[in-house]
């Protein structure tokens, strides 16, 4: 009996949390598509989310591409199928690893930063002050961040795709003695528009989710520094889980028949 109660209560509070999140999301979206738009803040966020994430995402991509070439070589050499390496690199990077790894890295960087900044504004009454100055916090704080996530992540992932494939090329030609021209030719042949597009769609979804989680947890943080700390952790964890689960769903939609 007691067990059932606990299960029931947990389930109900889970439903309530999901409800609150959906409410927050629809409110944010409805403000994000209607004026006034704060271009100056959007610009700053694009710089923060997109430009300053480039080093992290670039490093992640190049090492991922390199290790992919190396690992698939050791595997495929057993079947003397080394020529499949460019294919493995291109498909894995564009479809999966580019968007997912970039998403996770940006979730750690940006989701945390957004939650901490908005959370601090909440607990130090800056959001109240914003409201008092007749400025809607959804429009001023949240909308530009959602847009920045949605726009920046696809651009970051496109860059990651290029750098990742280049990483594979580096290892294949310098370490594994592939012929550079043949490797490039194979890469071009295996490069499918659909793979890249699906990756970019994923990136846009991930970017939106990262910003949404950062804003949601920051906006609802309570208490002082401790509350902001909890909001930051929750933002990163929930964004990461949402990235991995929505990644499966989008893959299913694109490629399962």
């Amino acid at each position: 009996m007691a067990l059932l109660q606990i299960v029931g209560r947990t389930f109900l509070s889970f439903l309530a949390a999901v409800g609150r999140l959906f409410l927050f999301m629809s409110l944010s979206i409805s403000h994000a598509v209607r004026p006034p738009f704060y271009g100056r803040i959007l610009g700053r966020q694009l710089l923060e989310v997109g430009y300053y994430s480039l080093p992290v995402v670039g490093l992640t991509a190049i090492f991922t591409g390199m290790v992919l070439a190396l690992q698939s070589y050791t595997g495929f050499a057993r079947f003397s199928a080394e020529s499949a390496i460019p294919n493995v690199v291109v498909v894995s990077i564009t479809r999966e690893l580019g968007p997912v790894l970039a998403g996770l890295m940006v979730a750690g960087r940006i989701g945390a930063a957004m939650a901490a900044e908005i959370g601090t504004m909440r607990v130090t009454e800056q959001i109240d002050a914003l409201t008092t100055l007749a400025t809607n916090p959804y429009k001023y704080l949240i909308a530009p961040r959602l847009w920045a996530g949605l726009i920046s992540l696809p651009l970051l992932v496109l860059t990651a795709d290029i750098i990742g494939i280049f990483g594979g090329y580096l290892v294949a030609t310098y370490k594994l003695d592939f012929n550079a021209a043949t490797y490039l030719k194979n890469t071009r042949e295996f490069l499918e528009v659909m793979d890249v597009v699906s990756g970019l769609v994923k990136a846009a979804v991930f970017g939106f989710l990262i910003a949404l989680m950062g804003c949601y947890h920051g906006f609802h943080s309570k208490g002082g520094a401790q509350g902001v700390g909890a909001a930051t952790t929750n933002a990163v964890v929930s964004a990461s889980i949402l990235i991995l689960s929505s990644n499966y769903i989008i893959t299913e939609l694109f490629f399962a028949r």
Partner: protein
Amino acid sequence: MTPRSTNSQTPKIRVRGLSKSFGDNQVLRGLDLDVDEGESVVVIGGSGTGKSVLLKCILGILEPDSGSIEVDGEEVVGLRGGDMDRVRRKFGMLFQNAALFDSLPVWENVAFGMIQSEGVARKRARETAAEKLAAVGLRPEVADLFPAELSGGMKKRVGLARAIATEPEIVFFDEPTTGLDPIMGDVINSLIVEIVQKLGATALSITHDMASARKIAHRIAMLYEGRIIWNGATEEIDSTDNAYVQQFVNGRAEGPIEMPVRQA
């Protein structure tokens, strides 16, 4: 402040039966308060009695559990979105902890209302912000600093400059002189008096500083246990026989107001 002639028009702010609780903590319990146009009212009361909550309810930052709040005769409880923002443009507010935007330099904090909700050009707004900063006794160099680089008293003054920058009809001051040295405190008191007298603004202030209250208030109201238990002209505060007010004004530990402190 010297008493002003009473008039019988609709009050600028009219609060009736305002209640607000947080969980089990009943903070406001049916509070009534009128503030007339051009009047300066000071609310006094012990720490944690809900003075800041009262201001936030009027501004629509907190939603009251029940009661009515009218501004210029218009009911504002339940107003949302653009309608509420239209009402909020009548207000300026100095927060107790200043609540400056720490991602913006001082001048943009002060100019925020002008730029964002009045659409003033940034350059013009910056000039006006500089004037307001001078009015609260801050030097021009301060304009380019960030809030984290200011002392507590400087933050308070920037908050004050932000509250009055758009020359609002109604200004709320939540403890305007706390954390300031006595001289600067008096400068701020004079500034508040000037805003009320010259601009004809309506002011609702909170303070624990009785000297400040005497200087800036036409009328003083005392908040205790969620209601206004006394309110009268500033001169009456010393002659009243209300034991609560007497105890508060004279700052005595003994009296009808009990502080929840256990003797060691």
